[in-house]
């Protein structure tokens, strides 16, 4: 204590000072969250930020579904509808799903590999604090003259260049900032995993969440700069008289789509690989069995990542690709079903003859396996080039990617949150409330997105505020489901708050938290101390009950 130089209003909690005199608690005072370099603090901020963005993007989704409740224009104008679809997509992809995974990585990866913190803690702080500014800038455009970006989250040129509202420049800089944030986060995660593993933590002993994130981080470093490049080209086309995407000046609008999807397809795996990792952590715990096929999981994840770079043009089957191109991208896309199938079968095999219990994280994980597979199958249908000419730009596509993103990525994030919440807060969440949240979400998601398959096949185009009468019934069902799903998330938020506060009904958690939980993070106290693994743990020491 005597060796410290602390001002009186910074005096740390006496309990958190060890004999060596270094304080273990968080700094106090208003600057704590702004200046923190602690991976747990930053992880929490990422998760809270993504929750706020999830609710914001969700409100936009509800505006869309409210307008689509009936045919005709009831609530909003078509221009605003387009802004809503665009902002909903951008916020959910870049503001909700990606930061949530980075938040989970921040919290869990150092604890899973036995590291004291992330490898580059100051950069970690920076990569988080860029995000609120990026998204403030993005959301600001809603109040600008000419309105927010209205060209869809894929911002195809020339819609996003020649015909864009003036606020597109703010959009471009927001994308630059979130790109820089993601790249820095990815560098940090790779450096942590490769450099800070505890002695004895070999690569093939890494938990799968760490493995999937390692591969995801490499994908991020490979493609986020390409996204930054494509928006920079847009910026130059709009303001500096270049013609990258303007045919009149010698450019090519199709070039935009090639570059965008060169980023865009790995991006969809960036949003799903960490989800695979989370589910691969949870299912063995509640099936009380070792994960089936660990090594094949690692190789499958790597193959998916590799294949993601050579399939991008399956988003562009209708631009007039030559036959050779259509065939190449069709078959390479279908090839992805093989490693993905390996993963799905491994999860099922893990559950097979396991002693399963159905706590909330497990419910979400099982729903993930089932519903993600449905999304995968509709993806296979879309991969068939001749059939895609009918499905292209219809609600079938909307159904497909919402099935892989909502009960895929989002369910996995929720499962992970419930799974690790007792480790973060020291308290169990309210299990009953969790289960109610799960069932409401499960029913809501399926009510919302399953009918979209049918209206899509029947020909309803995406991104339209009004539609033909024959689509009315299914749209009404989808809107009801969307409101059910949307409002049931309030239960999730309430449950988290209760758990964090340790309210009545939230039991104290022990170290292990779950009966069969396995991994270094479960050897730490619950809640996890502010600083963990200042001394590298002994990997070879068996788990409390001998491990598995």
């Amino acid at each position, binding site marked *: 204590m005597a060796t410290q130089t602390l001002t009186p209003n910074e005096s740390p909690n006496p309990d958190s000072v060890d004999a060596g005199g270094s304080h273990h608690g968080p700094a106090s005072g208003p600057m704590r969250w702004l200046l923190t370099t602690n991976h747990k603090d930053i992880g929490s901020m990422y998760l809270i930020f993504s929750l706020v963005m999830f609710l914001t993007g969700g409100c936009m989704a509800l505006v869309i579904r409210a307008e689509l409740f009936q045919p005709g224009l009831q609530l909003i104008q078509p221009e605003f509808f387009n802004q809503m679809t665009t902002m909903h997509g951008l916020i959910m992809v870049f503001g909700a799903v990606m930061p949530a995974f980075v938040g989970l990585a921040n919290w869990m990866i150092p604890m899973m590999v036995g590291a004291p913190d992330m490898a580059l803690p100051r950069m970690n702080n920076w990569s988080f604090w860029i995000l609120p500014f990026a998204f403030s800038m993005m959301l600001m455009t809603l109040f600008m003259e000419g309105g927010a970006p209205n060209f869809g989250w894929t911002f195809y040129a020339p819609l996003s260049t020649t015909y864009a509202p003036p606020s597109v420049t703010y959009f471009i800089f927001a994308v630059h900032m979130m790109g820089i944030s993601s790249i820095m986060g990815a560098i940090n995660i790779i450096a942590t995993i490769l450099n800070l593993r505890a002695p004895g933590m070999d690569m093939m002993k890494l938990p799968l969440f760490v493995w999937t994130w390692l591969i995801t981080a490499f994908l991020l470093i490979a493609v986020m700069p390409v996204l930054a490049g494509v928006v920079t080209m847009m910026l130059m086309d709009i303001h500096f008289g270049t013609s990258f995407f303007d045919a*009149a000046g010698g450019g090519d609008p199709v070039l935009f789509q090639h570059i965008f999807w060169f980023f865009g397809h790995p991006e969809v795996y960036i949003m799903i690989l960490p989800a695979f990792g989370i589910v691969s952590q949870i299912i063995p715990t509640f099936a009380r069995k070792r994960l089936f096929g660990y090594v094949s999981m690692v190789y499958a994840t790597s193959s998916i990542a590799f294949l993601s770079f050579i399939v991008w043009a399956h988003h562009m089957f209708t631009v007039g690709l030559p036959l050779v191109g259509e065939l190449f991208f069709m078959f390479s896309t279908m090839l992805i079903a093989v490693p993905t199938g390996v993963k799905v079968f491994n999860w099922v095999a893990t559950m097979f003859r396991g002693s399963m219990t159905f706590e909330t994280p497990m419910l979400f994980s099982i729903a993930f396996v089932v519903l993600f597979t449905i999304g995968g199958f509709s993806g296979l249908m879309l991969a068939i080039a001749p059939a895609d000419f009918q499905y292209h730009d219809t609600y079938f596509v909307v159904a497909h990617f919402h099935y892989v993103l909502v009960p895929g990525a989002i369910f996995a994030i929720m499962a992970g949150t419930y799974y690790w919440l007792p480790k973060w807060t020291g308290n169990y969440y309210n299990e009953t409330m969790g289960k109610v949240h799960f069932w409401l979400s499960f029913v809501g998601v399926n009510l919302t997105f399953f009918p979209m398959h049918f209206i899509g096949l029947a020909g309803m185009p995406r991104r339209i505020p009004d539609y033909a009468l024959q689509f009315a019934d299914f749209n009404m069902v989808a809107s009801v489901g969307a409101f059910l799903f949307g409002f049931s998330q309030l239960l999730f938020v309430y449950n988290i708050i209760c758990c964090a506060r340790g309210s009545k009904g939230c039991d104290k958690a022990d170290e292990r938290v779950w009966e069969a939980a396995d991994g270094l993070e479960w050897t730490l106290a619950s809640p996890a101390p502010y600083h963990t693994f200042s001394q590298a743990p002994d990997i070879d020491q068996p788990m409390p009950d001998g491990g598995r």
Partner: protein
Amino acid sequence: MAKQRDNSHKLPLQLTLAAVLMFGFGFALSPLYDVFCEITGLNGKITRTGEVKGVVTVDKSRLVRIQFIAINNEGMPWDFAPQSTVISVHPGEQRLTHFNARNTTLGEMVARAVPSVAPSEAAQYVHKVNCFCFEAQSLAGLTSQEMPLVLMIDPALPEHIRTVTLSYTLFDISAIHNADKPEPSAQSITFFNGLYPEQPNAYSTINDPRLTYYRAPAEPLSTLPGPETEATPSGRLAL
């Protein structure tokens, strides 16, 4: 241990370098895309232009049909059409044909024709000796001109290709063209005028018919009747 320490400093730098290189790669995709199309002939782009070098024997044994298509890009008000919509040539034979263009507006306009060949496989066998599409075409108001095209089909054209379609899309590039000059010659009132009063050319929607039809010199747009009065105060069209 010392080795590990070295690595821990290098790794973030290497990763940062990788990110910077990928940013460059994004830009490199633009020329690479053209190179790829040139090599494979995929995009229907014609790369063989200028005088024919060497001796080419005319293949009298077969005739290839060449169809001409003229398309106006959205909002382009010129009359634009080929003089003959289809010709038959022997491979190796040079042939001259013309397209007609007429500027139907009052003001001077600059246009560029962007060509495309179908089937794309045939693109590498089409040799353009001279083409109006090589340069921007400028026309004063209400004038017209004949635009020449000299081309040759390579005798190496595969037997199964009997018809080649040459399509030209005409783009209005007056705004881009005028932006290079200090004083815009044409009246450049724009679609987004309410938003960018200080930059009349910045967002001029090149292809907007409301703009090009009223591109009369020295006459303010506000005195002309027309659909632009439907523009809402925010500068967007009322639907």
